[in-house]
């Protein structure tokens, strides 16, 4: 097992492949079973095309998912994988990642799986900063159970379980993750393969937990949920792509930008009105998550302003590295002498 330092801290310890790989190497022999037109297909393809660029041994990659349409993802990957139970993938993956430094562990989850039943595991995984890449397929609906509202559904949504409209105020997954001390948070859209791949790349390179929210269309139960972010003419007004170190500008011709507002808030403005110097320069590495948080609040979840890209990416010790270090320290400083442990300090001897 050759472990080559790729210069990617996120993947340190994971052995690299001897030969170049292709997308099809990552396709399993199982037939893909999503509805026609499901956004999950696009993401699957993007991931299968992206993984070869990491050059890792396939057998050292593991996909762990919960339950939901998106959570069938592992079956289609020619890697190791577990389709576990609803909401628990981050917890299972935490155990796996802690036990095995030589694996690249990916979690695939949905808005219901990750944020409803699995919310607690998600936030704890993020605060612990376990070395996991978490792909959250957000279709703002429960797909597998046939169309109930989810924790990211808009208030007032009429679904099978809310014939008079849903009442709950939705989570903003980015804000939630930042409130939960996430070290890496990004967002992408199923249809934007380049953007998605770029966020995946940065996530893979990040050492620690990386939460990637992926807006995913469910043509069956929530069709067109993200159409405004895809329609030419509409999308440019709404999409705010981030690039570290660059002023945050958007619009078909970069005519809009993000500026400071009040204390600790951000807002959108016309560049022509505020001037280029007023624009906020994106700093994904800011220690204080307040900036990333403010970015996540540029609009409510009506998609009127949707920031994509990497909101935050900071380096902090990871739980699994630290746990292994403690074991290593203990091994280095104390003998693993079972006999002496069992005897302890106070023994007596009975002679025959």
């Amino acid at each position, binding site marked *: *097992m050759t472990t080559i330092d790729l210069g990617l801290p996120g993947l340190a310890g994971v052995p690299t492949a001897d030969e170049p790989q292709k997308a099809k190497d990552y396709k*399993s022999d*199982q037939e893909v079973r999503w509805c026609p037109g499901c956004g999950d297909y696009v993401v699957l393809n993007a991931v299968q095309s992206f993984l070869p660029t990491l050059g890792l*041994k*396939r*057998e*050292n990659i*593991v996909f*762990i998912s919960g*339950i939901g349409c998106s959570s069938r993802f*592992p*079956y289609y*990957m*020619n*890697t*190791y*994988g*577990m*389709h*576990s*139970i609803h909401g*628990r993938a981050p*917890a*299972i*993956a*935490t*155990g*796996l*990642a*802690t*036990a*095995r430094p030589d*694996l690249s562990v990916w979690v695939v989850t949905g808005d219901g799986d990750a944020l409803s039943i699995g919310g*607690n*595991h998600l936030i*704890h995984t993020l605060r612990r900063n376990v070395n996991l890449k978490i792909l959250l397929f957000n279709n703002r609906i429960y797909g597998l159970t046939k169309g109930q509202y989810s924790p990211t559904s808009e208030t007032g949504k009429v679904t099978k379980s809310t014939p008079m409209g849903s009442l709950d105020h939705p989570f903003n997954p980015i804000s939630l993750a930042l409130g939960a001390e996430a070290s890496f948070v990004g967002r992408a859209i199923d249809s934007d393969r380049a953007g998605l791949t770029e966020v995946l790349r940065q996530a893979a390179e990040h050492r620690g937990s990386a939460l990637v929210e992926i807006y995913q269309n469910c043509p069956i139960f929530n069709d067109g949920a993200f159409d405004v972010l895809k329609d030419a003419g509409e999308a440019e007004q709404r999409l705010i792509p981030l690039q570290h170190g660059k002023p945050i500008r958007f619009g078909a011709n970069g005519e809009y930008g993000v500026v400071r507002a009040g204390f600790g808030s951000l807002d959108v403005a016309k560049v022509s009105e505020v001037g280029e110097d007023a624009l906020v320069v994106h700093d994904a590495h800011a220690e204080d998550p307040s900036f990333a948080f403010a970015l996540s609040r540029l609009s409510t979840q009506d998609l009127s302003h949707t920031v994509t890209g990497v909101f935050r990416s900071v380096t902090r010790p990871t739980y699994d590295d630290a*746990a*292994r270090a*403690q*074991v290593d*320290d*203990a*091994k280095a*400083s*104390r*003998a*693993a002498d*079972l*006999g002496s*442990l*069992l*005897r*302890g300090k*106070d*023994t*007596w*001897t*009975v*002679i*025959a």
Partner: protein
Amino acid sequence: MSTGVDGGAAATGTPRSVTKLDRVVIRFAGDSGDGMQLTGDRFTSEAAAFGNDLSTMPNFPAEIRAPQGTIPGVSSFQVHFADYDILTPGDRPDVLVAMNPAALKANIADLPAGGTLIVNTDEFVKRNLTKVGYAASPLEDDSLAAYQVHQVAMATITQNALADTGLGKKDAERCKNMFALGLLSWMYHRPTEGTERFLREKFAKKPDIAEANVLAFRAGFYYGETTEAFAVTYEVAPAKLAPGTYRQITGNTALAYGIVAAAQQSKLPVLLGTYPITPASDILHELSKHKQFGITTFQAEDEIAGICAALGASYGGALGVTSTSGPGVALKSETIGLGVMTELPLIVIDVQRGGPSTGLPTKTEQADLLQAMYGRNGESPVPIVAPQSPADCFKAALEATQIALTYRTPVLLLSDGAVANGSEPWLVPDVDDLPDLTVEFATEPNSPDGTAFWPYLRDPETLARAWAVPGTAGLQHRIGGLEKADGTGNISYEPDNHDRMVRLRQAKIDGIPVPDLEVDDPTGKARVLVLGWGSSYGPIGAACRRVRKLGHSVAQAHLRNLNPFPANLGAVLRSYDKVVVPEMNLGQLALLLRGKYLVDVVSYTKVAGLPFKAEELQNVLTDIVKGVDAA
């Protein structure tokens, strides 16, 4: 072995008559803040070091520190030590040490007439008496006439003894538990170096406190020796145990050591994924100290995350372990089911406590057996192993691991509060005698045509599935909670396949070989069999001895494997006229036995949060044996 303070000091002092006893039960009782657990623990260590057989039972309130001087705030520790092999911490104390009125009130009913009562008089002031509802001091009326009462102003004497140390009054008074320990150590001719060494180590960072405690301890010892109050001292000779090296051990520690040993013997790293809960937390505490053995302890956000992390680690080829008590098992049930379906090894430790719901968190009970058997959706069989005594936890942990690894299955390890916190001498095993637990992971394709890896292809003998861990080239595969096709492991909704898989999973567990049940029937004439499981081994054994001492024949057998049962169990049950099953629940094992073997077992149950008393069982059994023998 020297028994005196400062080496031979015990030889000096007023000569006293020495009575030889074969066994003694002492109960130290005081306020939660009085350090009774420590006191009892030290006395136990002294008895252990002296070579007695022993058995202990701590008893503490659910509150961290209930209001001082109240009944709910009383904490006690009972130690039973003897010159022969004993089985229980004793039903009732021979000696009760009561540090305050609350302790007296809460415990005096258990002291048999003629028993010795040692009271710390300093606390018997109006306020404290009123707090617990004593109108007058029981030391001053004749309510204690039935006992041999020793009134000792422990706090005052301790403070006096420490006057020169410069310690504050309060700190000095705090050492009065060591005074009590010293006094009792003197009474029972205990070796004392261990305690002095212990105190110096424990307070290594506060040497003045260490010295004060040692001084108080000695003060107690000398008090016994110099005052004339105590006419008799007692000797309990070392027990004639099997030869070997012994140590004292609690169930939780033994269980943790069993896991450490399992790690060593399987050569696998261990990941304990757990969440604190009484009375299981000490397993986490203990294991977290032994990382050098390749043990990672993960305190998760809840019980579910704890077991999930353990399962994830097992998936990665480690030994996943999770520890909890009954309410935690309830939460873990869905994930245990995933373990059954994915057929991964997993040790699930349930240190049972009083239920239902939060119940009696610090008390013991055996009422999770049926939860362990059936507490999951669908047909979801798991092996169950139950240790029968504190020291037995070590072996049980190794056995559970052996089953989990061989059969790729979650195993339920059913301990309980009595076993977990109780202690007894343990014949320390030779590391070389421990079983080999190494596993063979799959490394090659195994499909009939030799080209693919089929994760659900089974070993024809064990029915265990092939186990390939991530990182194994060419064996990439996916598992999960959906039903899988026999062999390939692909998702299958096929009716016949499901029926087959349900039966295969059951057959795998049913086929685990467990040792035959051994019956203890010294006369060979018994017509009544007493069958227990788990921590009631001690009281049942003690009761049987007593019944036999009364001249009756009674057979005893004890189940350590609750699923599957030993192959000879049905035959054993049917060979007695009557089978009595005492349980600290409403008859859970009895139900299983009746259902499986159609034997009309008699269930004797008590669900009081306390272990059975040998006396109680003795009476029950004697009546039954007499009835059967007369019939």
